[in-house]
């Protein structure tokens, strides 16, 4: 039963952090190169521009959900299960989501990299 809770938490972490990453990436692409913006308009205008992007707040909220699911997940499951399982699955989920929602060209090179990193994270945690 505890295992089921732990895996439910892992699922929620993966879902929330992937949503957060995609929304943050989308917002920052809309804002554009921040160093250009900083140079041209100053740091306050840059921060204002970021905060005024609606998807940015949604992204932060999703990251918050992911953080709290991690806290609860850790109270139900072992550190050695929850952290590597959620972070390696997030890698693969992010590659899929970036391709579908952000229209990034996830070519063979990046697929191999996502799988290598995900596998590496699991091995390091064993």
């Amino acid at each position, binding site marked *: 039963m505890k295992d089921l809770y732990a895996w439910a938490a892992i699922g929620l972490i993966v879902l929330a952090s992937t949503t957060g*990453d*995609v929304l*943050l*990436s989308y917002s*920052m*692409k*809309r*804002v*554009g*190169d*921040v*160093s*250009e*913006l900083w140079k041209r308009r100053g740091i306050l205008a840059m921060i204002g*521009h*970021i905060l005024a992007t609606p998807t940015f707040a949604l992204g932060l909220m999703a990251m918050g959900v992911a953080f709290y699911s991690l*806290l609860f997940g850790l109270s139900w499951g072992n550190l050695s299960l929850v952290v590597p399982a959620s*972070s390696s699955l997030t*890698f693969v989920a*992010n*590659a899929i989501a*970036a*391709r579908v929602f*952000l*229209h*990034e*060209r*996830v*070519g063979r*090179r*990046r697929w*191999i*990299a*996502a*799988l*290598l*990193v995900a*596998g*590496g*994270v*699991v*091995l*390091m*945690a*064993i």
Partner: protein
Amino acid sequence: MTFRKYLVLAGITAFSTAGDSLLARGMKQLGGVSLHHYSDLLLPVLNPFVAAGILLLLAFFSCYLAALSWADLTFVLPATSLGYVLVALIAHFSFHEEISPTRWLGIALIAAGVGFVAAGPSVTPDRQHRKSRDLSPDPASQEVKS
């Protein structure tokens, strides 16, 4: 990719690793934290390790956002995982901790994955079109129109 952009990516790795370790160290000093006591949720901030950890994680988040403003998500993410490698190497070479063969294999896989991505383009073609469009005089008003 300019030198400064590589510096931002290095900042992601370094700040997230240092921030996480400081936070973990501070939280261990405090012992068990219960979610039922509100004071337990606020007090940790007064611990110097936790406070420093939070500051470093804020620095990490700024670098992360900056990188996402000019690079693909699938390009930036592997940089965050390089932190695992960094922690293991520091533990091995400065604290002389033993690293098992499976962990060395994990380190090799992560490093290979990061190398694979870093050798490729940081933004995929259609992004670059958008970027050159954004360089025209007033990007803010353009944003509203699109």
